[in-house]
């Protein structure tokens, strides 16, 4: 599975609204769309760090880096060489 798919799948399985109602594109801001809450933010951070074996610096812990699949991919790319 590609990194992009893994992230999408993780967000999908933790979405606040019911799965069949939720449709999001990789560029969508998932926080603004109200799909996820701040409780999810910590879990998402843990997921990214364990899945991609990297430590996100404090300065990179800002909503914008986690607000869409694209942004998460870019964040991970800063740390590691990954296959999208």
């Amino acid at each position, binding site marked *: 599975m590609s990194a992009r798919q893994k992230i999408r799948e993780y967000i999908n399985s933790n979405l606040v609204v019911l799965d069949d109602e939720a449709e999001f594109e990789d560029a969508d801001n998932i926080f603004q769309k109200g799909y996820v809450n701040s*409780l999810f*933010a910590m879990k998402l951070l843990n997921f990214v760090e364990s899945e991609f074996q990297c430590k996100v610096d404090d300065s990179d*812990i800002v*909503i914008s880096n986690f607000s869409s699949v694209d942004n998460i991919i870019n964040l991970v790319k800063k740390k590691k060489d990954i296959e999208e």
Partner: protein
Amino acid sequence: MSTTTEAKTKEVKCVVWDLDNTVWDGVLLEDENVQLKPGIREVLQTLDSRGILHSIASKNNYEDAIKKLEEFGIKDYFLYPEIHWNPKSHSIANIQKNINIGMDTIVFIDDQKFERDEVQYNHEQVECIDAVKYTELTEMPRMNPRFITVDSGRRRQMYMQDIHRKNIEAEYTGTPEDFLSTLELEFTISKATEEDLKRAEELTVRTHQLNSTGITFDYNELRFFTHSEKHRLYVCELTDKYGSYGKIGLALVEITDTHFHLKLLLMSCRVMSRGVGSVLMSFLMNEAKDAGKKLLADFKKTDRNRQMYVTYKFANFIELDEKENIVLFENDLSFIPLYPKYLKLTITE
């Protein structure tokens, strides 16, 4: 003072008991008529009433040991019992993880030196005690919390409710937030009163993982803040359909001409998965905004409170300054997260 000695002065949160020749005389596998050691029931009861939890690390057949504990009428004192043939250091690690407390707040009591050494080798911060000293436990300074509050008296029950909730949650198939909405959560934020202060002090002393500054305040300091025009001290209580989690949160705000300055924010680890930290944060943001001010927050980074750091950052706090792990956050309040739909929020004056 070395760090090890220092750590072993912390108030004890859990005593982990061996069974054979510790809780009872004899070895259960060899003699099914083992007898409780004299006075053990009273030791268990006394510590329990002080809010100190009990657990078990015993090498025994699980069913037999549980049956014996039931016969003695003491089974319910023990949370997350580890009864099997694996090393006791593993058992302690599991208990620590399940109860979600620091290793430095655990005491292990066993009659066998080998077992104590094995635990000590793997968990330096655990205090290991020879079972012959069991009657002395209640006298140890670490076993005598400064205050016994309503919440300490019912701590075991609250943990039992938590186990019940966890089992239900594990079987739940919907999203985490759907699960939360089934709990009928009610979150109450109120200004601290005289009666809240003991529990408030207890919270500052007991909470490390979700403490924003690591500062502890004593009763008199907290009392001062409740009477001060320049401060506000809030306490939070959480309940759901299974019962009350108790008073689980605290926030201290200093009011300046331009800002609400958050000096301390803390939450009990037991409610970590309920998302109420963000609710309290939104409440404080709204209070500051209503007063026409911005919000500042002190924060001390430790290796244990990263979750809280992340909560601040995701609530749009910007780091104004950082010196030796002490951060000053500011929030311009341009974006205040809405209260979640899965809980009922009550704000009392």
